[in-house]
């Protein structure tokens, strides 16, 4: 068994010791290739530049307002077991009851709204007629409540401050 392995090893050694035959014209061809100026790779750079611009735009997103970038998700909840419908209305949805209808589970009405930094007045409209302030938020005080219906206020701060 060892004899066979020695034979293989000897043959490998002989193979490795054989002189390498190199084409005599190889040196000349290499020197010519080095001396010849390479044409610029025009096809690649425009694509690289376009990709860089695209990445910059994605990171910067000039079409998005900074306030949108800082918008936070707020959940509004009202416990109203007897209600047939509840809408959230406020400065963030043009006080339009159709814009933020609330969903109920066992009399707990809830909805989620994206709010940019700012101070917003809002209220719950129950059954399309009854106004309720949010019991878990500051209420608009009487001097600032010109319309005689209860409202609350939510203030959204900046994320970076």
């Amino acid at each position, binding site marked *: 068994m060892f004899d066979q392995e020695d034979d293989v090893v000897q043959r490998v050694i002989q193979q490795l010791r054989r002189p390498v035959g190199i084409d005599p014209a190889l040196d000349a061809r290499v020197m010519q290739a080095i001396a010849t100026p390479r044409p610029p790779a025009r096809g690649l750079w425009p694509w690289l530049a376009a990709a860089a611009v695209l990445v910059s735009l994605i990171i910067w997103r000039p079409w998005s307002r900074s306030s949108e970038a800082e918008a936070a998700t707020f959940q509004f909840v009202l416990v109203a077991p007897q209600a047939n419908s509840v809408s959230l209305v406020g*400065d963030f949805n043009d006080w339009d*009851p159709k814009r933020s209808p609330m969903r109920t589970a066992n009399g707990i009405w809830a909805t989620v709204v994206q709010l940019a930094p*700012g101070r917003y*007045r809002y209220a719950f409209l129950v059954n399309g007629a009854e106004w309720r302030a949010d019991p*878990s938020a500051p209420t608009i005080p009487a001097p600032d409540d010109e319309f005689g219906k209860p409202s609350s206020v939510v203030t959204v701060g900046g994320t970076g*401050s």
Partner: protein
Amino acid sequence: MMLALLLVAAQVGTDPRLDRLDPDTRAQVTTVLDSARHVGLPTEPLIQRALEGATKAAPGPRIVAAVRRLSADLGVARTALGTEASAPELEAGVAALRAGAPSQVLASLRSVRRHPLTMALSLLADLVASGVPADSAAAAVLALAPKARDADLVEFRRAVERDIALGAPPGAATSVRVNAGADIQSAGSTPGAQPRPRRP
């Protein structure tokens, strides 16, 4: 024909959202909006106040009065906060002024706080609405404003409201929380925590 052209011309500058107002109220509100725009005041808060009145079925004269009053107060807030103040800052400034904060407090806040003033001014208004005397609320906000983040101010308000609900006098609750300044330093978000919808 000429009347129709005039009507069309008058409608060109009208925000379509104001179509919910009756024509007379809409015309008067539009006049207030034009005046505000002319002096560089934000018009969106005025539009929202008019829409609030419309949705709450308020009489036209009351809506117009509310919009006029808000426009005037926005001007006062801008005088106190400076011409660089943003629309949210001006709205919060109006709330603080109506709560009883002097204009000097608004100007002082501008000078001591690097961040936007919206949350600090709202805190001032909300504290007063919770029963805290205006001067105590102003002193507290001025003490917190230089270093507190917006999230700290929200946590401060909640802590004061909790203390008041538990029976503490509003002014004393505010003073105690200001002095226990360490309480407001822990309101930041936890790294790695899942974002959840906030509550008002």
